[in-house]
């Protein structure tokens, strides 16, 4: 990459520190970079650590879970070693986040218009009237019908889809450079999900906002993102362009995910489940975390953990046997 990345996560480990025992890592040695205006998807199943990673960037780790090591650099500055108030100032104009369930992120006793206006007033120094005008403008941009009247509503008076739009309006009100999305459409109906995804895409294109999009839905990531990281048991197992990865995965877990998900465009394809379960965080296997479930695993896989290495141009995979398994299948 020629220019400096917008966000660069280096050797990030997250987990639970214990007083008289070694810390339990839930996410281990994560490395990835996001360029300005990029749309980056992170997929994985429950417990893979994808949401925690996002929350670490947003400084919203749940209690008891800490950054054990590594750094998160935003435009060259390490967020983790920054004074707390400086980091807080970034939230809004630089980094914003939207959640799966907007009801938990919105203040139930505050009118939604005021909630959207709050951040621009504080960060952009707008007057009350200016901020309100901006809020209504943001609501209009997010496709909320009748924004002037809706601005006076409380969150519980709005439908799930409208609440999600309010949260998007709130997140984008200060034109952040980086938008973190944690399964923002999982709780929505399909037709509404479609609308919200298109909205996000369009708004981010307009403002040049980079998107980090965490989801378990392969279809959603294909519709929304250009770059993709697949997480398994707290680590990235494969990374590359979404289209390339979907067309020809280079890690057995990615292949397993793609094979097990029903694809509307291939109704006749048989679904193949991944046998077994993800490992328990406190009891991770010594070698490759996926080896116990991997049909291609050889003895070596059980002894040593593979690092994320270039597999194809523009593609990285953490698998010793990638070349053997996927020989001749390269896209």
């Amino acid at each position, binding site marked *: 990459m020629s220019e400096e990345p917008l966000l660069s996560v280096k050797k990030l480990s997250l987990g639970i520190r214990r007083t008289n025992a070694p810390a339990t890592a839930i996410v281990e040695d994560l490395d990835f970079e996001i360029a300005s205006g990029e749309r980056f998807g992170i997929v994985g199943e429950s*417990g893979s650590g994808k949401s925690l990673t996002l929350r670490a960037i947003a400084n919203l780790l749940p209690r008891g879970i800490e950054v054990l090591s590594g750094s998160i650099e935003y435009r060259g500055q390490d967020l983790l070693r920054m004074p707390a108030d400086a980091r807080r100032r970034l939230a809004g104009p630089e980094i914003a986040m939207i959640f799966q369930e907007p009801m938990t992120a919105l203040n139930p006793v505050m009118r939604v218009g005021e909630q959207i206006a709050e951040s621009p007033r504080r960060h952009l120094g707008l007057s009350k009237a200016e901020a309100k005008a901006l809020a209504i403008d943001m609501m209009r941009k997010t496709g909320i019908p009748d924004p002037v009247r809706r601005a006076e509503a409380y969150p519980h008076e709005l439908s799930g889809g409208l609440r999600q739009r309010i949260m998007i309006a709130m997140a984008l009100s200060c034109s952040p450079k980086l938008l973190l999305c944690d399964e923002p459409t999982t709780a929505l109906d399909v037709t509404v999900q479609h609308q919200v995804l298109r909205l996000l895409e369009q708004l981010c294109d307009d403002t040049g906002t980079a998107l980090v999009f965490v989801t378990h839905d392969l279809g959603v990531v294909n519709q929304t993102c250009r770059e993709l990281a697949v997480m398994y048991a707290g680590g990235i197992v494969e990374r590359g362009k979404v289209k390339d990865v979907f067309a020809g995965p280079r890690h057995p877990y990615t292949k397993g995910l793609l094979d097990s998900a029903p694809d509307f465009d291939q109704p006749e394809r048989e679904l193949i*489940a991944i*046998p077994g*379960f993800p490992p*328990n965080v406190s009891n991770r296997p010594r070698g490759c975390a996926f080896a116990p479930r991997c049909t291609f695993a050889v003895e070596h896989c059980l002894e040593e953990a593979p690092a994320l290495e270039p597999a194809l141009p523009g593609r990285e995979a953490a698998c010793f046997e990638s070349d053997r398994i996927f020989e001749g299948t390269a896209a």
Partner: protein
Amino acid sequence: MSTPTAVLVGFKARRRAARLRSLQPWYRNGTLIAGIVIVGILVLVAVFAPLLTPYSPITQHLEDALQGPSAAHLLGTDKYGRDVLTRLIWSTRVDLRIGFLAVFIPFVVGSVLGAIAGYFGGWIDLVLMRIVDIFFAFPFYIMVIVLVFVLGSGEASIYLAIAAVSWVSYAKIIRGEVLVAKQQDYVVAARLGGISHAKILLRHIGPNVLSQAIIYAMSDIVMDIMAIVTLGYLGLGIAPPTAEWGSMILDGQEFITTQWEQATIPGLAVVVTSLGLSWLGDGLSDLLSPDRRK
């Protein structure tokens, strides 16, 4: 019938995340242990009371009245010359027994009525809950005192009075728990399986809702012991010669300026017992609270 082609997935016991939440085993729960130790000691004292002391709690030795602490009488003697420590020990028997027994009847009655109200709903629920509201409108101690006054003093009327007043709390707790539990899909599934209402309540809902009532019962025993002590203090409780903390406090109060320990020590016994039971209740609530969902 043949086995379908589905993959046979080997069963491997896997503890759910929710279970991991209580990483701390029960024996590491300080509150629970403290509660168990205190209540355990009290129960042992009550059971082995006759073996713990050479004196009788009742027989009067007027010649030894109102002695201070000595080697023969560690806590001295009361105005009838009875050993105070002995009476204290025998009181444990009376107060704990009444405390535990007094909780039993309202626990059963209240739980059954509450479960029926919550499970069946409709007019049964409406009527029962209005009755509960009426009982709740009266202060607990006043009601118990009035009832005992009307029924006449003695152990039987204490049980009756407490049962009449405190079943409502159990009914309310269990009703609330049943209302939540009956929404759970496993109850719907049991109905679809043709299982009778009685069996669903007893076998499927019961074990899931009882823990809250048990936890409450611990603090209720404390309330009941306080009630017994209060009644004893008012002279409405257990008939005189029997040793009981409340009547000991009443008797000792006369001499509070000269022999303060006569009233204070039984008072402390009440405090320690209450503390032990409360800790036991807190500890149990950590242990038993069902990890609902997640």
